[in-house]
C-alpha cells in the first residue's frame, strides 16, 4: 500500500509541472502587459520599460518560467498586479470558501443522489425510477448559473427566506450549495442506479437470496457495498466539474471564493492572480483525485491485494 501511494505521489510531480508550464504559456500569450497593468494606461513608455526590466519581464521565457516554478515551490506565486498583495494571500483567503461550497455541494449530491439511485435500482421501471431518471437528465442539462438565478428568484426574491449574496453565515450557503450540487446529484443518481443494477445481477447476490437472506440485507449489506466502489471514483472526477462550476455559481451569488476571484482578475487583467488560481485549483483537483484513488484501493480488496505482494 505504501508503495502504491509513493508511486502515485511521484507521478504527481510531472503532471503538476506540466500544468504549471501550460498555464504559464497560456498567460504569457494572453493580451495585456504586466508592467502596463501595474502602471495604468497613462504610463510613459520609459516607465513601463524600466518596470519590465525590474520585474525581469525582458528575460528569456525559459528563465522566467524557471523563476516562477522555483517561486511556487517556495509557495511564492508573485504579487497581484492590481494591489501588490502577494497572490498566495489572496488565494488563501478565497480557497477555504470555495472548499466549503464544493464540499457542501458534494455532500448534498451524495445525500440526494445515492438514495435516489438505490430506490431506482431496487424498484426498476417503477414511477419512482422514472422520476429519478427524469430528475437526473434535467439536472445535468440545466446550467448552474440559470438554476442559481431561479433559486434566487424563488427563495430570495419571491419568498424572502434566504439571503442572495456574500457569505456571512450558514444560511448564505444554502442556495449556492443547491445550485452547484444539483447537477452532481443527478450524476450520482445515475451512477448509483447502474452500478446497483449491475451488482444485483451478480451471482453472489443470487446465492445470498437462494440461502434465504432477507431482501433488505441483500440490498444494503451486500449489493450496495459493491456498488459504491465505482461511485468513489466518480466523486473525484465530479470535483473537477464542481470546481469549474463554482466559477459560475460564485459569480452569481458573489461568493468570496477562488472562482469569483479568478473571474474578477481576468477582467482586471491581473494575470498573476489568474495564473496562481488556475494552478491552485488544478493542484487541489489532482490531490483530491489521488486521495480518492487511495481510498478506492482501500475499499476494493482486489486493488489492495495487487500491491500487497
Amino acid at each position: 500500500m505504501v508503495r502504491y501511494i509513493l508511486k502515485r505521489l511521484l507521478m504527481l510531480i510531472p503532471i503538476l509541472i506540466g500544468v504549471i508550464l501550460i498555464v504559464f504559456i497560456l498567460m504569457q500569450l494572453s493580451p495585456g502587459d504586466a508592467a502596463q497593468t501595474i502602471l495604468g494606461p497613462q504610463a510613459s513608455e520609459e516607465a513601463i520599460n524600466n518596470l519590465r526590466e525590474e520585474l525581469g519581464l525582458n528575460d528569456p521565457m525559459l528563465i522566467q518560467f524557471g523563476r516562477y516554478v522555483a517561486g511556487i515551490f517556495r509557495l511564492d506565486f508573485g504579487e497581484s498586479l492590481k494591489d501588490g498583495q502577494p497572490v498566495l494571500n489572496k488565494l488563501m483567503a478565497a480557497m477555504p470558501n470555495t472548499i466549503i461550497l464544493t464540499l457542501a455541494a458534494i455532500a448534498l449530491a451524495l445525500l440526494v443522489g445515492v438514495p435516489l439511485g438505490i430506490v431506482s435500482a431496487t424498484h426498476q421501471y417503477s414511477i419512482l425510477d422514472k422520476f429519478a431518471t427524469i430528475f437526473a437528465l434535467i439536472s445535468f442539462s440545466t446550467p448552474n448559473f440559470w438554476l442559481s438565478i431561479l433559486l434566487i428568484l424563488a427563495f430570495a426574491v419571491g419568498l424572502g427566506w434566504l439571503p442572495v449574496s456574500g457569505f456571512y453565515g450558514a444560511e448564505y450557503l444554502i442556495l449556492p450549495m443547491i445550485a452547484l450540487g444539483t447537477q452532481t446529484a443527478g450524476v450520482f443518481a445515475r451512477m448509483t442506479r447502474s452500478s446497483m443494477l449491475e451488482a444485483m445481477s451478480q451471482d453472489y447476490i443470487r446465492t445470498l437470496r437462494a440461502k434465504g437472506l432477507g431482501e433488505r440485507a441483500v440490498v444494503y449489506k451486500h449489493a450496495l457495498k459493491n456498488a459504491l466502489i465505482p461511485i468513489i471514483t466518480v466523486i473525484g472526477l465530479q470535483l473537477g466539474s464542481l470546481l469549474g462550476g463554482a466559477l459560475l455559481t460564485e459569480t452569481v451569488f458573489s461568493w468570496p471564493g477562488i472562482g469569483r476571484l479568478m473571474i474578477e482578475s481576468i477582467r482586471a487583467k491581473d494575470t498573476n492572480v489568474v495564473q496562481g488560481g488556475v494552478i491552485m485549483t488544478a493542484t487541489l483537483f489532482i490531490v483530491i483525485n489521488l486521495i480518492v484513488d487511495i481510498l478506492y484501493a482501500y475499499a476494493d480488496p482486489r486493488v489492495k491485494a495487487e500491491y500487497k505482494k
Partner: protein
Amino acid sequence: MKKRKEVVETKLKARNPWAEAWRSLRRNGMAMTGMVILILFILCAIFADVIAPYPMDLQNDQHLLESPSAQHIFGTDEYGRDIFSRIVYGSRISLTVGFIAVVFSVITGGLCGATAGYFGGKLDNVIMRFMDILLAVPSILLAIAIVNILGSNLVNVMIAVGISSIPTYARVVRASVISVRDQEFVESAVAIGDSVPSIILRNIIPNCLAPIIVQATLGVAWAILSCSGLSFLGLGLQPPSPEWGAMLSSGRQYIYDSVWMTIFPGGAIVLLVLSLNVFGDGLRDAFDPKLKK
C-alpha cells in the same frame, strides 16, 4: 474464454449493426422525443429568418421590458427587442458552436487517441500524460484561459470549448482502438501490407465509431453549456449577440421585474441540452450490446 465466446456470438448475429442500433433506438420513446426536439431546434436555426417574427436586433422604444403578450410571446428586453426572435436566432449560435467545437475536438482528440492506442509504448505514454495534464485543469477554466488569449468571438469560443474537451475524446478513442487493435481483421490488414494510416482510418476507426458518436452527442450538449457559461460570465460572445448565455447575463439586471428575460433563454438552453442528452443516452443504449439482451 469469455471474450472469444462473445466474438463468435456477435459474428453469428452480425447483420448490420447500424440497422440494428436504429431499430432499438426507434423503440426508445424518450430518445425519439429527444431526437424530434433536436431536429426542431435545427430547423429553427436553419429557418430562423422565416420563423422569427421580428429581426433579432430590431429595437422599439415603445415596447421596453414588456411582459409576454400575443405580440411578443416571450416579452421584450431593455431595448424593446423581441425575445422570442432573439432566442430563435440564438439557436444558430448554440448549435454552430456545439457541433463545430465537437467536430474539432473529435478529430484532434481522436487522432491523438488512435495514435496512442495503436502504437502503444512510449508514444502512448507521452500523448496520454499530456492529456492527463490537460484533464487536470477543470475544462471550463481551460476554456476561459484560452478564450482570454484569443479574444472573445464566435470562432475563438468554438476553439476554446473544443480544445478543453480534446482529452475526453482521446481517452474514448484510445480505449476502443486498444480493444480492436488485436483482432483478426487488423492482423490480416497488417499481413497484406496495408500502411499504418490506412489501417487506422479504414479498419480501426470505423470499428470504434459507436462510442465516439455517443460521446460526441453528449459532447455537443456539454459544448453548448460551456459556451453559454462563458458568455454569461462576459468572456464568450458579447451583447448584442443573441447568444442565450449572453441574453441571460443581461437579463440578470432586470431579474426583479422582468423575469421573462432570464426564464426563456435559460429554458431554451435546458431544452436543447436535454434533447441532446436524452438522444445521446438512447444512442448509447442502442449501441451497447450488453443492454440488448
